[in-house]
């Protein structure tokens, strides 16, 4: 389920519903283990300019997922030859991703249903 309570202390992109960023990150990491920089790039590329996720707020979100046990981190040599922190999905994270994806689909279909209704 998506939480819509805003935590005042967390600087979240205002146009991104809380929890949606989590879903995006889990989805991206579900494809392959990546480091923060690569995640940031992929996020921008996939979503185009529609989602503004500042680089700054990316890391607190990643750390939160790590502390929840959904992703795990490992220091490995990156494609640039420098050591970087690679995140990958845990078993728990995969389950979480499935649940969140299902939730998202339900919610978005419900919302688009309502939106279409009003358009008619």
């Amino acid at each position: 389920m998506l939480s819509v309570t805003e935590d005042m202390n967390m600087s979240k992109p205002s146009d991104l519903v809380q929890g949606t960023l989590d879903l995006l990150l889990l989805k991206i990491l579900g494809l392959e283990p990546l480091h923060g920089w690569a995640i940031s790039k992929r996020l921008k590329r996939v979503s185009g300019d529609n989602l503004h996720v500042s680089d700054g707020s990316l890391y607190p979100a990643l750390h939160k997922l790590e502390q929840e046990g959904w992703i795990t981190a490992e220091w490995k040599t990156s494609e640039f030859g420098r050591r970087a922190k690679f995140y990958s999905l845990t078993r728990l994270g995969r389950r979480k991703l499935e649940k969140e994806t299902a939730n998202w689909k339900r919610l978005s279909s419900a919302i688009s249903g309502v939106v279409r209704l009003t358009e008619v």
Partner: protein
Amino acid sequence: MRPEHWLYTIPLRLRSLFRFDRTEQELDDEIRFHLDQQIEENIANGMTPKEARSAALRSMEGLELHKEECRDTRRVSWIGDALYDVRFGARTLRKNPGFTAIAVLTLALGISASTVVFSVIYNGLLRPFPYQDASRLTTFSIQDLRNTHVSENGPDSRGALTGDQLIGFQQQSNSLQDIAGFMNADVFCENGEMTLHLQAAYVTSNTFQLLGVGPLLGRSIIPEDANRSAYPVFAMNYHLWQKRFNSDPKIVGTSFVIDGLPRTLVAIMPPRFQIDGDDIWIPSDPIPGDSGISKNAAEPNRVWWPLGRLRPGVNSRAASRDLTAIAERLAEISPSHLPPQFTTVVTRPYIDVVIGGFKSTLYALGGAVAMLLLITCTNFANLLMARGSTREKEIAIRASLGASRGRLIRQFLVETLSLATVGAVTGCLFAYWGIKGILAVIPAGTIPKEAVITLNPSVLIFASCVAALTALLCGLVVALYGLRGELNLRLTQTGKGAGLSRRGGKFRAGLVVAEIALATTLLVAAGLMMRTLLALTHIDLGFNPANILVTELSFPNGAFPTPEGKKVFLQQALQRIVSSPGVIAAASSISLPPYGGPGSDLEIPGQPDTRPSRVAMDLCSEGFFQTLGMHLLRGRLFAEADMASSAQRVAVVDEVLARRFFPASDPVGREIKFNVLDLIPDAPHGTYFKIIGVVGSIKNYGLRNPAIPQAYLPYTTFGTPGGNILVRSAGKPLSMAKEVHDSIESVDRDVSLTATSSLETYLQTFSYASPEFGFVTFGSFAGIGLLLVNVGIFGLMAYNVSAQTQEIGIRIALGAQQVSILKMILAAGSRLIAAGILIGLSASYGLTRFLSRQVWGVTTTDHGTFTAVAILAAFTGLAACYIPARRATRVDPMVALRNE
């Protein structure tokens, strides 16, 4: 799901906690990697290195904030924060040593005093006994409720039972599960190496089972041990074993000769087994048909003191009814042992019998110490509030620099909690010393011997928690108060306490008023205790107790089979004592002031008085009146010839008896009969005594009660198992102790002396010790309370003055005199003090009646005491205001105004 979750999270938490630096380093590395990539990309996109760098940093706007957010996700950052807060708190506290010391001392005093007092109450009153289910142990006595003359010892009672009566109660009682009996005896005990004079108790064979305590060494005493045919055995008190036998375990199983009969020691009882306070316990059951009355003067009567155990679910009233019915049946069987007026059996819990009136003293003390704890907490709160209001600006600055509300509140809580912790630890130390101090002043014989008074951990924890709670509340109030409203406004204001609203000041003033009220109440209690002690020590005893030595004689069993033999002994002994240098007079008696001996009903020929006519009856030698220095009012005193058992029966009476029974006529030459003598086998039965003289009365019914009618008979009237020697000396009475001892030993080596002391010490031990304890404890609590209150008043006034500096400066600049400034500050202080004293006095008016059992010779609402307390509190309170007020008059208007 949970366990798998922990599998990932616990290592992470531990890592962030214990490898903090490493985690920090990784966070830095991760961010730097990102930045470096961004910079490289920017350069690749054609920016200069400098532009690339600043653009990268811009994309990570609020970098430090984000890092902090990352740290917060670790969920353990609060621990690091708390550590930081503790360090910060400690630094702040070190920078204000005066404030810290006062706050810590305040708390420590409150915690320690309450812990000590409640430990004494818990160990001495609530859980003193090591016996099984001690709350159900009960004693009972047959009482003469007809006699309404209630003394501090209750109405007249027959606590001791004959063997037959004890057996009767044992067999017929339904309400008591079991009844044991104790028969006290002075015995001589020897084992070939030494002879000891011991206080023994013959105890019924069920005693040890009833108490449910096994031996420390050896075997339990079982009912079969009391059989006549069984091998005679006994059990020993731990303290005797430790003191006289050096805790030698080998003496168990050895044989002693006790009062001429060989007995084997089979058990050493544990240290806390102190029932009846005896040295040894000898199993022995009462013999059916034994009247209990001794055949000759040398042996004491065989009477048993009962101790029973209530059946579960039976209350003491039901037990009283049950036992009264038995007593009525027993009275029918042998009316001579239970005179008709003794009809009602009254049960008392064993603890009440042991601790007696001291119980109410302890409860009153508990109330007092609770007040002291309240004062300390209030004072602590006051101190914190005072400091908090000077730190409002600090709070505002920190809040505007980005500290969150929660973080600020936490910081204050940690700071006050560390203060409370130091206070609690210091309090533990104080309590450790305090418990030793209070044990030294607790009057002897008030706390059961079984009780072991130690610090009670749960009380200590409770008191510390109260302190911690106060600290938490105050910290919270201070922080919330500092955070209320528009912070920026406060930053623009100036002055140390600027921004203090009138409400905060009023709250603190309220705290001070409450403190003054509490301290006033304590002072009133202490004042009443002091008046009681003064009244008791200045009682007119009717004689001069100075320079009198008293000692108790113990005669070995069978030493003087006839009154005549004892008379010869006493005559010789007294003669030798009187002839020693420094002795003015010496005498013997069976009781010592302030008690006048056993009671008896009085019969006067031609005066058929049906009123209860109880008199105290002492047996004394001819020198008694001279020794105590009593005044002869009419007739003559005893002469040596009156002591001969063949002489005419004569008596000396006191003026109270004369007034009561011979209001209109001269008692000298009249005859009176003491009915109690008819019950004593070797006393003259049906005999009338001729009154030969009337003396002034002395205290004979306890110090606190008026004298009751008193008669003195020659000590040869009948045999008693012991007696006292009183010696009036020219110099210090104790210097005569050795000579008295030698004189008695030279007459008869087997007579021993116990409890030798001066009469003043004797009175001190038995009559003044309790009021003195009350005075010392209440006095010290009231003193501490007053001190704390003055700290509180001083703190508040000093703070008010510093907050008003500007106002005072303006006043002075406008030409106000120093006196008027002084008056202004003192007036503000005295309003608080007056309010506090008024509330305190009204509270005392209602509360001091709980002290009615401790207070004597003064009413609990004594105006003198109340006035004195009001003056004392007002004076010290104003003194505490004076220093800040003086400081106010010295305010330099230029400095005060420029400060703004």
